[in-house]
């Protein structure tokens, strides 16, 4: 624990906070988007906002893999488990996400479906080996970080001739989502767009893809990016690096998380993914809508391991719930507390929109970690 404790030291946090306060220009606002849910979680978990001057505003982006998974894909997963009677395996917090009809995989399990929580794709392969008479589907979700283990599982399944194993692939890509937010900063009929001054770039995702794929953000959109680690001091120091770039009028891709991330990324992992998967022309993101070239699918050479093809899964288009402000919150146009549903009908026990679904979502973090801020300004909707 010593290793992480060093990145949580409060004396260093205070010193960094003083430096940030000294260096910011009081005459402007710094609107910085942390793309990743991991950062959002750290910001609220450690109370990082307490250290930030009021004109440094953190916008919580869509980088929470559970949050952005559209409901239609969970409908598909429930269909696999319930109607096709497969053993459906997936990672922890995806199991409680409500699909259409408010039903989650956990509820499907309570009704008799065989839904199992796994900690890695190796567990899913093991289940397939141990249950040769059953069909096993791994419900694969996540950004570039969780994609290589899925690719390796597919290759391994072919090697072992595990014909009862397949993958329902929902892996999504970070750079196209950032591109989409920069291209469509405004939601229809909503208030005016927010100008994002810079990005705190993903940490785990970047360990796989490296820093290069973000270069378009600086080149095309003239926004600075700092790849930031997930520990609280990483977040604070990266914020300082962004403030400095903005003050100096620079827009470069800088890397704070050098202890893990290189410019090239993890080539071996990239190759494994490239062997098994290819780009999807478009994919629906909960809260963002259809985003072109933003997800991966399994190549036809591995079609027998593609659950979508194997079970001929229908494309289910789901619309977000009426009144839900997630699409504006993900773009920084609104705060969770601006949403009419927040805290009234939408809370972590009963999430209505993407940002409330996982503890990494902006609304869930506001609700779980930040409610006392609202308690200081009484509001009838917050109880």
């Amino acid at each position, binding site marked *: *624990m010593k290793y*992480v404790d060093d990145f*949580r*030291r*409060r004396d260093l*946090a*205070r010193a960094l906070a003083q430096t940030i306060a000294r260096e910011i220009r009081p005459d402007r606002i710094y609107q910085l988007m942390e793309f990743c849910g*991991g950062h959002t*979680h750290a910001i*609220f*978990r*450690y*109370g*990082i*906002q*307490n*250290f930030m001057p009021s004109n440094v505003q953190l916008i919580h982006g869509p980088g929470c*893999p*559970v949050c952005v998974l559209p409901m239609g894909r969970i409908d598909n997963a429930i269909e696999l488990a319930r109607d096709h009677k497969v053993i459906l395996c997936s*990672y*922890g*917090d*995806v*199991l*409680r996400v409500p699909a259409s009809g408010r039903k989650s995989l*956990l509820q499907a399990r309570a009704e008799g479906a065989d839904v199992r*929580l*796994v*900690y890695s794709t190796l*567990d899913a392969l093991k289940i397939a080996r141990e249950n040769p008479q059953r069909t096993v589907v791994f419900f694969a*979700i*996540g*950004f570039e*970080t*969780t994609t290589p283990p899925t690719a390796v599982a597919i290759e391994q399944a072919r090697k072992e001739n595990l014909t009862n194993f397949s993958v329902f692939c929902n892996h999504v890509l970070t750079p196209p989502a950032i591109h989409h937010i920069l291209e469509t900063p405004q939601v229809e009929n909503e208030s005016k767009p927010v100008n994002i001054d810079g990005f705190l770039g993903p940490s*785990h995702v970047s360990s796989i893809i490296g820093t290069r794929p973000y270069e378009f953000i600086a080149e095309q959109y003239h926004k600075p990016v700092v790849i930031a680690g997930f520990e*609280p001091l990483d977040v604070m120091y990266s914020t300082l690096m962004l403030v400095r770039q903005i003050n100096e009028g620079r827009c470069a891709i800088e890397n704070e998380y050098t202890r893990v991330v290189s410019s090239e990324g993890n080539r071996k992992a990239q190759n494994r993914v490239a062997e098994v998967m290819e780009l999807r022309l478009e994919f629906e993101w909960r809260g963002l809508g259809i985003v072109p070239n933003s997800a991966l699918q399994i190549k036809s050479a591995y079609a027998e391991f593609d659950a979508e093809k194997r079970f001929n899964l229908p494309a289910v288009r789901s619309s977000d719930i009426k009144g839900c402000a997630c699409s504006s919150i993900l773009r920084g146009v609104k705060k969770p507390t601006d949403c009419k549903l927040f805290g009234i009908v939408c*809370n*972590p*026990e009963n999430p209505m929109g993407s940002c409330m679904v*996982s*503890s*990494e979502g902006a609304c*869930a973090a506001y*609700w*779980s*970690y*930040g*409610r*006392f801020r609202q*308690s200081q300004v009484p509001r009838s909707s917050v*109880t």
Partner: protein
Amino acid sequence: MSTDSGRFPLRLNIPGAVVEMRHGSGGRSMSQLIEEIFLKHFDNELLRAANDQAAFNVSTGRMVMSTDGYVISPLFFPGGDIGSLSVHGTINDVAMSGARPLYLSAGFILEEGFPMADLEKIVISMAHAAHDASVPIVTGDTKVVNRGKGDGVFITTTGIGIVPHNVMISSEQAQPGDAILVSGTIGDHGIAIMANRENLDFETTIKSDSAALHTLVADMVTAAPAIHCLRDPTRGGLATVLNELAYQSHVGMKLDEQMIPVKPAVQALCELLGLDPLYVACEGRLVCICAQQDASRILEAMRAHPLGSEAAIIGEVIEDTHGFVQMETCFGGNRVVDWLAGEPLPRIC
């Protein structure tokens, strides 16, 4: 009931036998199971009377009663098993009123096919736990359900106890200014269980903290009878217990994360799994809320007891009509420590 070797010509073949439906049918087989497993190990005068109830005299005063069901998986884990847990847990629920626990009852729901040897192991563990705590199991019940209708064994225990005259502990009594104490490191039990679930191949030395806390409570009550609230943080962990107390007392709480004791191994596993130790279960810890002027005396009494050696003052009760539990994080920021939402599930990345 004395052991009558003539009634059962063959003794139970415990190493090879499994629980069968006949063991719950009320006939000779059930009688033999009771005699050769339950009575043999729980042995005490009240149980030996073999009535449908246990009869005993009580002194005048306030009595408390509590019941709890135990459905844990895995049944055996480092630091205990479902048997010891079912004794400790109910003793603790009784003791959180400040009471001295007197007697326990135990109800077993056994699944057809459950190995008799495992049942005996569990019963022996319960007998040891009850003996060590000096709280005998004086009445019980056994049912057998069809294979597939249970998960091996479910145990329900009920306890009664008697509260000393000058003690009045209740969860709506926390007052602004009160001190919040915890008796030791949090999350040990939950992490020990999680690390031993079959699909998690972690090798850890973490043991469940499962323990009977009534002697610790007795020492605390002796040191300062005017304790306001006591509660043991089981499911939902410390965070849930503090939210319950804040809600019931209509107060807020302010914690200092640096003061909350967590074992490094528990912290490390929580980091790996994306869990927060504040929400992970304990089975041998308690939270105490008392007036500020009693806090150091109670802390001293706790630390002098083997089950409270790592006790700490972790925060204070504040005025807050919202009933929020707030915390200054180890990092120096502030956050709310909310109720647990749903089941704690590992995060993806």
